């Protein structure tokens, strides 16, 4: 224990270790916060998407701080909802009721929005309302959309309305809706826009609500992916997953390797020989290939992968290193003394030999963690990642399948990569410093 305290004091001499350990602690803190604020089941649900979870996020939006790199003011998502007000219902003499809603918003950005969408929700018993929509630009121009008869929910993606686009003869609907001129080939118009909703309700209790979403080009701290999911969720949740995976793999492998090696070396004879042979065969086995096979034919669950990884890494060549140490320990005088005062084999192995070796393990253990983190990421990039859990590797896989780099969505690739690198570097720096601490021969002072 005092060795630990003395060692921690020594860490002061190594700035790289301090940096590394600080970052590790920050990552751990982040993991803790993430797990507490977004519970696991919630994260899975969010990541699965569907059910309109991400509907109001723009797709493929860059992170908000991207604005710092752009001279143009990039648009953020604007949502206008009739539930916020601005709707009137007037009774008509023929028994119908007329709904008039004006969805107004200010647009002062320098770039077009990515999409425009409209949600209509109607309450009725039998007869659907009849709705007319008019888009009014700041220069006074008005574009009429097609009439609609919405059901309980009606999702109208204005940006994907091909007929409208053809009718307007515009290159893209965003241009048509936000640019000067009927085709929108003029300059971008800044000012007040309005979507006028005129609906006819045929029943006395019917009602109509409308929500207009003008999707921006930047969103959130980390941007969004093609399915509109906020990358921040995956990045945040990727942290505890990565750390847990790396830690558990490192711990499992190390503990098992150590125990197997200690027991084998102590018992000697046939058991030792068997363990050594298994280790040698295992060194020849292609680990990644086996994991790929397990992923393809059996299960892609993260926890199954973790278990398989530990099993495959247990008989690592580390066993040979530990064996050398244990062999020399076996002859140590204090072990001999223990046998003389009647200590049994279990006690000697677990209380006298293994504690001696543990300080030497710590640097190797810390340096091994990023290796396992990268392994998980690699498996995900190969398409064998866990389909449900958001991990950094999964983000990279999604980016790859969506051709992110070709299309210029660099943030999608750079953000998980940066986190992976940060994790790797911080553990490695800590590990190297710990190594210098625990292995006096590497010291420079």
């Amino acid at each position, binding site marked *: 224990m005092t*060795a630990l305290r003395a060692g921690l004091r020594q860490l002061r001499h190594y700035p790289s270790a301090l940096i590394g350990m600080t970052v590790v602690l920050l990552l751990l803190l982040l993991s803790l916060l993430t797990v507490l604020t977004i519970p696991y089941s919630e994260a899975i649900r969010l990541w699965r998407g569907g059910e309109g979870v991400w509907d109001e996020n723009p797709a493929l939006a860059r992170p908000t701080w991207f604005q710092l790199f752009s001279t143009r003011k990039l648009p953020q998502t604007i949502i206008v909802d009739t539930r916020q007000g601005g709707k009137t219902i007037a009774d008509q003499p023929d028994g119908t009721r007329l709904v008039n809603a004006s969805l107004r918003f200010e647009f002062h950005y320098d770039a077009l929005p990515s999409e425009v969408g409209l949600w209509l929700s109607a309450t009725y018993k039998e007869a659907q309302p009849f709705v007319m929509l008019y888009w009014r630009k700041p220069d006074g121009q008005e574009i009429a959309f097609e009439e609609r008869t919405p059901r309980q929910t009606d999702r109208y993606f204005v940006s994907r309305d091909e007929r409208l686009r053809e009718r307007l003869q515009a290159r893209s609907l965003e241009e048509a809706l936000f640019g000067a001129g009927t085709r929108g080939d003029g300059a971008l118009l800044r000012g007040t826009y309005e979507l006028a909703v005129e609906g006819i309700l045929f029943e006395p209790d019917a009602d109509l609500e409308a929500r207009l979403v003008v999707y921006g080009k930047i969103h959130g701290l980390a941007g969004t992916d093609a399915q509109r999911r906020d990358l921040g969720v995956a990045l945040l949740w990727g942290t505890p997953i990565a750390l847990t995976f790396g830690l558990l793999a490192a711990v499992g492998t190390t503990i098992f390797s150590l125990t197997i090696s200690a027991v084998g070396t102590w018992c000697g004879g046939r058991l030792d020989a068997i363990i050594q042979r298994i280790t040698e065969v295992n060194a020849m086995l292609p680990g990644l290939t086996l994991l790929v096979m397990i992923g393809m034919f059996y299960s892609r669950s993260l926890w199954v992968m973790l278990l398989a990884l530990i099993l495959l890494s247990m008989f690592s060549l580390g066993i040979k290193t530990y064996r050398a140490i244990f062999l020399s320990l076996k002859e140590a*005088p204090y072990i*001999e*003394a223990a*046998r003389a005062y009647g200590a049994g084999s279990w006690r000697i192995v677990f209380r006298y030999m293994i504690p*001696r070796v543990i300080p030497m393990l710590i640097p190797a253990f810390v340096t091994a963690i990023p290796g396992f983190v990268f392994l998980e990421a690699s498996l995900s990039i190969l398409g064998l990642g866990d389909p449900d859990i958001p991990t950094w590797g999964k983000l990279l896989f999604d980016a790859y399948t969506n051709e992110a780099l070709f299309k210029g969505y660099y943030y999608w690739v750079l953000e998980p990569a940066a986190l992976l690198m940060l994790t790797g570097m911080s553990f490695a720096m800590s590990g190297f410093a710990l190594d210098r601490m625990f292995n006096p021969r590497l010291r420079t002072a």
Partner: protein
Amino acid sequence: MDNSTLLAVRNLHTWYELRQRVFGRAGAVRAVDDVTFDLAAGEAIAVVGESGCGKSSLAKTILGLYRPTRGEIFFQGQPIHSANSQTLRWYHRQVGFVQQDPYGALPPFLNVRRILAEPLSIHGIRKAQREERIREVLEEVKLVPIADFITKFPHMLSGGQQQRVVIARAMLLRPQLIVADEPVSMLDASVRVEILELLRNLQSAHRLAIIYITHDLSAVRHFSERIFVMYGGQIVEKGQVADLLRHPLHPYTQALLRAIPDADAANAETDREVPPGEPPSLLHPPPGCRFHPRCPLVTPGLCDTQEPPEFEPEPLHLTLCWLYKDTTP
């Protein structure tokens, strides 16, 4: 074997079998080769010899760390050479071990209290009694004030203090016999006397039998009653300390005594007499008497063909040497 005999060793052999090579014979290292002696309760004997003579192997066989290849060991009448694990467990309480390297003998990651708690907890002593016994034993080895030492780790102690902890650990289970393998050879000259005196005091206070393994013949006179001289895996001479030092019988003992200097300026003037050659290989010992290739008094035809039996030319002074073939065997 009368009932004051604590330890009786009869024809003890400890041979280490070498692993079979694919071609060629395997052999055996004959570390202890037919050793017989009795040790009385409360008696201190010194086993003297050079490295490779088998004295450490003898010590470890007596401690129960090695199984003898042949021969018998009786402790208080109980057979130890063929003991089952329960008897061995009892035996380990009766024999304490003090090793040569005081630092190596202590686990570096445990403090003094936990080091001393280990043997007690192995043998089922309960926690409350453990603390008391630890204090008792630390006071006996004079590591006082106890509070100063009980939380320290081995590297914080001096060599002498470390050795005291080792002795304390050996005394924990109230043994009747202590085997001390070169207990002071790694300590400074001025500390050695302290430790040897401590052992002497413990011996008389608790009627302990002690087997000292050492190569320092000069100190033997002060700390034991009898000496055994070992050579080539055998005890070539046994006697009372004063007798043996004044009148060594075996040529090897004589050569050993001649080779050891006392601090005296006149030593620089003359060369010391040393027998030629090297100690014998325990794997392929010379035929007949082990010492004959180096012996100045060798009788060709006899010493090089037949192993001498034990003779007793003087009372309580025995030797394995053909020179005394006309005395009682």
